[in-house]
């Protein structure tokens, strides 16, 4: 016997093999293909494709709207998780299952519903548009649908942590003289940071990648309400495949570096665990 297997559960090499295999097929190979396709352009062509004024506006809108929506979801999700964990009320089960709806619903449906609600003649639009609130065909509309599709993430990451929260820590804070707000701010919130950051990252990533609903609500006006994925589709329709992939590569790089950043932030927030 050359080696002795000391693990309790067998199958490490098998499971790792599968993991690598699927990761390759599902993630690595498509991404590599994307890079190769983009590499067919010269640097000049590449730069020209990805750094136009229209493209820059689209990047800014894509990441900006996703960021704003994720921030909104951060607070909204925390509030929802708090209410669902801390209180009992009639219909709680229903509310709890409604949270997952944006995941199950085709986002195009969400986009259609939002746009028809907020257009000038829609149920809500007829009151909001006269007030100057454009809930359809505007940047605000994009943020609105991204809040919708990203809603479940923060709720679902924070909820279990809040459920496991040790009530004694809260009592300890109170007996030491902490007010409710001090207890929330100093004791409860910091233990939720890792979950909040994870939920934020998921909602943000979802927002960056969202296409189906945004197409319907944004109006897709170049420089104004055109997100980067729509720009890619526009390039594809012009049969400019190389340019389209070039934009995709830029999106990929920005997304990846943001996720790395968020990961670092998450690690920092868990520095007391080891």
């Amino acid at each position, binding site marked *: 016997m050359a080696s002795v297997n000391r693990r309790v559960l067998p199958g490490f090499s098998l499971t790792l093999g599968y993991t690598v295999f699927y990761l390759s097929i599902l993630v690595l190979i498509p991404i590599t293909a994307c890079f190769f396709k983009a590499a067919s352009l010269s640097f000049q062509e590449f730069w020209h494709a990805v750094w136009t004024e229209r493209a820059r506006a689209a990047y800014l809108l894509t990441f900006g709207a996703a960021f704003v929506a994720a921030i909104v979801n951060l607070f909204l999700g925390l509030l929802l998780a708090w209410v669902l964990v801390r209180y009992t009320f009639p219909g709680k089960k229903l509310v709890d299952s409604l949270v997952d709806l944006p995941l199950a619903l085709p986002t195009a449906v969400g986009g259609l519903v939002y746009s028809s609600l907020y257009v000038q003649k829609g149920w809500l639009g007829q009151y909001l548009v006269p007030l100057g609130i454009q809930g359809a065909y505007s940047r605000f509309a994009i943020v609105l649908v991204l809040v919708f599709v990203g809603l479940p993430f923060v709720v679902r990451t924070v909820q279990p942590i809040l459920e496991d929260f040790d009530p004694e820590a809260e009592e300890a804070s109170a007996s030491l*003289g*902490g007010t409710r707000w001090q207890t929330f701010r100093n*004791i409860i919130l910091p233990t939720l940071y890792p979950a909040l950051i994870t939920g934020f990252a998921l909602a943000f990533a979802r927002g960056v990648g969202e296409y189906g609903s945004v197409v319907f609500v944004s109006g897709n006006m170049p420089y104004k309400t055109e997100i980067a994925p729509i720009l890619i589709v526009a390039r594809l329709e012009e049969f400019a495949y190389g340019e389209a992939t070039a934009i995709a590569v830029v999106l990929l790089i920005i997304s990846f570096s943001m996720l790395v950043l968020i990961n670092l932030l998450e690690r920092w927030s868990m520095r007391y665990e*080891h």
Partner: protein
Amino acid sequence: MSILIKNVSKTFGNFVALDRVSLEVPDRVLLALLGPSGSGKTTLLRIIAGLEVADSGNVLYQKEDITDQSARDRKVGFVFQHYALFRHMTVAENIGYGLRVRKTPKAKIRQRVGELLKLIRLEGLQARYPGQLSGGQRQRVALARALAAEPRVLLLDEPFGALDAKVRQDLRQWLRRLHEEIHVSSIFVTHDQEEAFEVADRVVVMNEGRIEQIGTPEQVYDHPATPFVYNFLGNVNLFQSRVVNGKARIGSLEMEVPEGTHPEGQAVMYVRPHLLDIEQQATGADHFRARVKHINRTGPLVKIELMTEWGDFVNVEMSQERFRHLGLKSDLEVFVKPREVRVFSATGRA
């Protein structure tokens, strides 16, 4: 700070946790609430701390009625069984928390934290997180945190329950010495009689939401007030007997019932193992016959198990010298003479 508890009751659904409990805790005393789980001791402690609200009754500190004060305003130090340290804060931040939320100047907090670190002998560990400490260290940090804001009373819920035997022993003695140093009125909850007797000035035995007995460790151990206390303190022989004309009888044994307790009829006799004498010869009627069944000679005392003439098992303890003198062997028939008994009527109290 003296604490007065007046007629406090508390129910959880159908479960009566506390039933009209009254208790006075004098200033500077270290008091143990002793009882089995479900006896209401922790509930009482939490009501004193303000973490639980009594259904009825009052809690007073000194002479101030604080029944309606929240935990925040009571200025108590509470130590939780599982420490309840703030995991995301360092040792120093944990200890200083009570001062920080009360808006104490930073320099003052630093100074006080330093003092307390010295007191709990954890200097140099102030930058650690609770997850990096041992159980005993965590418990001491929890104690320092509770003491930081100079509480009026210190309340400890099973403070050593989650620690292993050796650490528990050290911490008990340390708590005793600490109490002598800082002199803050302290109440701690325990189900371990040895712990209560070793640490406390005063012991309160609780059962089913009521107080069974209050006294010094000696009073409680030597003169248990009720059958429950006798049983709970362990190591006692029970004889089902009959009391007729002030004399308790069982088998050939006939004993005067101690003065003032005359439960005529069915009664239970309580005798501690070290208060039973074994003799080879019969003398008088205050003894019974028994047969030696098992002998355990380990430890300072010899523990002997005997079968009585009426078929019960009885435990006797004696010194090694006495054992050698008697020359006891398995299956030997001997006479057992109780030196001191307590008789309670079979249905209730003495």
